[in-house]
């Protein structure tokens, strides 16, 4: 069981963030919502580990 990584783990974080914004560039709210949903699913599958996913959902929910 993997422990969810909650310390900095992305190379060149500014570049990643720019990529994320660029993907949403010019999209309507509906299209952006759909893109985010697909992205969550793609990333979740990459992580795979149910324990890490559950921790991720908790970590995201706690900040709301």
């Amino acid at each position: 069981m993997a422990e969810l990584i909650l310390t900095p783990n992305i190379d060149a974080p500014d570049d990643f963030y720019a990529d994320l914004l660029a993907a949403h560039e010019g999209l309507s709210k509906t299209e952006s919502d759909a893109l985010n949903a697909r992205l969550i699913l793609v990333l979740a599958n990459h992580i795979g580990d149910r324990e890490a996913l559950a921790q991720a959902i908790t970590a995201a929910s706690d900040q709301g």
Partner: protein
Amino acid sequence: MNKIFEIPLYAYERSPDQDAPAPVRHPVVVIGAGPIGLAAAIDLAQDDVPVVVLDDNDKVSFGSRAICFAKRPLEILDRLGCGHEMVEKGVKWDVGKVFFDTRKVFEFDLLPEEGHAFPAFINLQQYYFEEYLVNRVRELQDAGKPIEIRGKNKVEAIGTHDDHVKIEVATPEDSYTLEADWLIACDGAGSPTRRMLGLDFVGRVFEDNFLIADVVMEADFPTERWFWFDPPFNRGQSALLHKQPDGVWRIDLQLGWDIDPEEEKKPENVIPRLKAMLGEDVEFELEWVSIYTFQCRRMERFRHGRVIFAGDAAHQVSPFGARGANSGLQDTDNLVWKLKLVMDGTAPDALLESYDFERIQGADENILNSTRSTDFITPKSEMSRILRDAVLDLAEEHEFARPLVNSGRLSVPCTYDGSPLNTADALEDGPARTRPGAPCPDAPLGDDFLLPSLAGKFTLLTIDADAPDHFEESGIEVTRLALSVKDDKTLALKQRYLGVAPSAVYLIRPDQHVAARRESWNENIFRTAVRRATGQE
């Protein structure tokens, strides 16, 4: 031509009980001559337990209703003497396709595993299913077995007592009183028995309506289950197309919550919907139209003293996954052998408590699966729809998303993990699918199959292991079935029951669930296991 559901198959006849000076006591009364009630009655009568089935109607179910029957219930029906008729008449299918808008996003093949007597699924109208059960009742009657169906016998009141149940019955002629040592209530989701006893039935209501139209047509659609999310002919909703025998097709269209069911049922409204789906030129005839809503709920307990609930009367699920009738048949399969042992005094009353444990576990599994399917098919919020559509969009191109597509998780039998009847698993590295609590998977046995040899009694299945051919423990007879992997040409027995173990001894219950297993015979351990499996430990 009259359809079978228009002919009274168990017309009202006056019973001598109606003219008896005092209420006549019967060992078992079953309320409801639907699939579950008839299965319970046949199971009892086969073993010479007298049973009377009361039904307020005199015909099989009106319309096709339940149409998908899974392998495990077919195996149970085989034990009841009518599994093969169902399969011969039914439509076998393996392939399911899922469409999103106009695109096919996913296809599954049930890929039936080799070495089973029964197919993964058949489609068969409920009225045929009930007709074959009624035929089996007649066959048992001809053989002198104590089974009776009383049509147009409507139960009006039930009085519960410590050692019996009193039942007031209305008939077309008059009312009379019956007594039963045991009452099995199989009177459906709206169970009048449940209402009369003031018992709970709580769960989740789904705010949605579905239109079922069974149509007769000559169509060249393949024998596959087709499911649509958001198709052009039913925007924003779902649709299902599935084949039944006699050129009958099941069409199921989601309508949404805010509709007028009486209006939607009218042929002038149904036919344009079907033409939009099937094409203007396809000729069809409506056989049965119905609008349903559904709930996922169950009783807190299925057993209330001398009254025991089974099937939809005890638990209700959405139709996605074919978990209604299929699970009801597993209820009575679980119940009847226990009831017989309690009735003849072999096992204590505690054995019946395990019916609650095991079948509530089964019901909860079905409710969970069916609720999740429903949440996927009919998203309840904007975000759940966005996520659902994202899954469907991704599934077309990416394999990873396909397991998330949920158009119904098809009925599989429950493994009774943690049941008080189980003995801890002692077969090291044995296959998980045959652990204690699991239903035995079938396997070829010479020219025949394994399961019929395990039916209706306690069996000691030995594979390359020594054990006595017969023993008796606390009133329970156990007979050995000795097998060897040397005769196991397909290796199915080895894969399903041994895994890497060199040998195995299994104690198998009359309902073909595993009670205990280990590598070799041990008298003390297996005697204890028999007592535990019958509530005596």
